[in-house]
């Protein structure tokens, strides 16, 4: 047992607890398809409540594909599933499909021209294996009470 604990903490020491990265939000084809199928659909949940990380960052955080992560910004915090970004390298960046989960951490600062800051700001990512990803209705309830 002690051995195990030592081993665990050793492994923990190897990985970062938290990573400061730049958040980019945007459309993905899957998000597009899912939103047309319905915001309450399983497809929407599967494809939008996610966060894409570079493979090197995944290694740094000691994550596995599909593991829950918590993304925190000064404006809020949300738990989503982590996925490896499939196309190219983008170390130090995470990508979230636009939708409710991404907006829970977006700033409402509009620079006085009406456009909130949806992308290009710093957030912290950390593994959150014990925290659940909230569904659309749960998230609405939590954030807006309805």
């Amino acid at each position: 047992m002690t051995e195990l604990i030592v081993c665990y903490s050793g492994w923990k020491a190897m990985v970062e607890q938290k990573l400061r990265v730049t958040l980019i939000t945007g459309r993905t084809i899957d998000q597009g398809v899912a939103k047309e199928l319905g915001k309450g659909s399983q497809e929407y949940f599967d494809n939008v409540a996610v966060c894409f990380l570079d493979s090197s960052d995944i290694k740094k955080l000691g994550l596995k594909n599909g593991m829950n992560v918590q993304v925190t910004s000064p404006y809020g915090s949300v738990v989503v599933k982590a996925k490896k970004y499939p196309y190219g390298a983008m170390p130090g960046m995470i990508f979230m499909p636009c939708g409710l989960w991404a907006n829970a951490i977006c700033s409402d600062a509009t620079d006085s021209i009406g456009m909130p800051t949806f992308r290009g700001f710093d957030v912290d990512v950390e593994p959150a294996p014990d925290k659940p990803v909230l569904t659309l209705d749960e998230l609405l309830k939590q954030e807006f009470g309805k």
Partner: protein
Amino acid sequence: MVEIIKSVVCPICGCLCDDLEVTVENNEIVKMKNGCAVCEAKMVHGYKSEERILEPHIRKDGKLVPVSMDEAIYKAAQILTDAKYPLLFGWTSSASETQHVGVELAEELGCALDNCCSVCHGPSVMAIQEIGIPTATLGQIRHRADLLVYWACDPWSAHPRHVERYTAFTDGRFEKSEFKEYVQKLKGKASQKKVEAAIRRTQVRYQPSPRPQAAVVEAPPQSLARDGRKMVVFDVRKTMTAEVADYFVQVEPNSDYEIFGAMRCLVNDQELDVDKVGGVPVDYLKEVVDVMVNANFGAIFFGLGLTQSVGRFRNIEIAIAMTRDLNRKTKFVISPMRGHFNVTGANTVFAWQTGYPFALDFSQGYPQYNPGEFTANDLLRRGDNDATLVISADPGAHFPKKSIQNMMKHPLITINPDWNAISRLGDVVFPAQWCGIEQAGTAYRMDSIAISLKKVVEAPKGVPPDEEIIRRILEEVRVIKTQKNKKEEEKGQGQQNLEKKM
């Protein structure tokens, strides 16, 4: 009964592809040809999903309960007339006929009126108002463009048929499709992969790959100098679109303004003292600028990556300025990739009736325009408005949390076909027909070409078009306002009589 309807218009993104072939069986779309994945999701499955709103609802004791249409209309009109300063927001997935009535409603209420433009290409509109824009319809680009630059946008995901219908993979009169070259490239890549795999198999020893510190920008390929169509993608991340491009330039987040500035210098034959701008070596930029200047007809498309990151409308402004400079050397155009299928229409309709494209206010009895003051997010985050009507949009899923939290402090009316995030939050929830599936109307393509949307199936019974709902609310508002005025007059008269008596 099976019916095949041709030349149907897709009511999803700003491409407004109008070549869909839809098979309708027993008032249900069963099959579709030519559409993209998103289109198929909506037109074959999504529109008839269980998430559909079939009757009006009003929130009573915290729960949404079905009510009659008359009751909902009356309640909505009452909310809007009782409020001091309502906000009418959305409009971009409605036909322009609906938007038309919307302006009248806002004018009657003397309230704020905004459309989704303020959270997508509002900054682009503002940039155009600053310095204009050299642009062209998509067909002009299809016929003539031999250089296509996609900047901070991913048409493969957001406008799936843009490349195939209007730009690189389509045959124009003077420029041919690049598709064959792309297939060649793919084949080349596949064989290269095979070779690499074979080499890997021969290597016994495991070699750890070096960990990249930041994304490395590759040098421009030889193929960029050839004749014929070429495609260049600038983005912060490699996207599907970047995969099919001849050259992908990965820029650092929030550095677009600098890169445009540097490229503008290069277009104007000035030297730069630095080696790298925004993570991109200047030498590479030079090569790209050379290709731009030597193109017969170049086109730049840009997306929300520019409007939503640091710099906002200044990013667009400098992009347009660079395009203007390029026009001194060759022909160049630039276009925003408009999102919702009729967001251009909302700008258009608002502008011809009021002179302004979005961020409107009627509180003085005449239209006023000020992004940052009358834009939905600014009103909401300041808590200026005391009632909201949302039509054919889902700010519930696409506005920052704080804005929606403030919206929740006051009554909310929604008009949407399905239970999207904002409908779930509404106090008065109207059902509506799917515009372009169950309801005909006009929409404006991203290059502001008006196209008639078709009605292909009948809507479920009792679900009206959103135009009718807005019209009825408008009539009801007028009735309530006359009643109120009458009462006030009587009150005023009573007071006058009282004064006389005294």
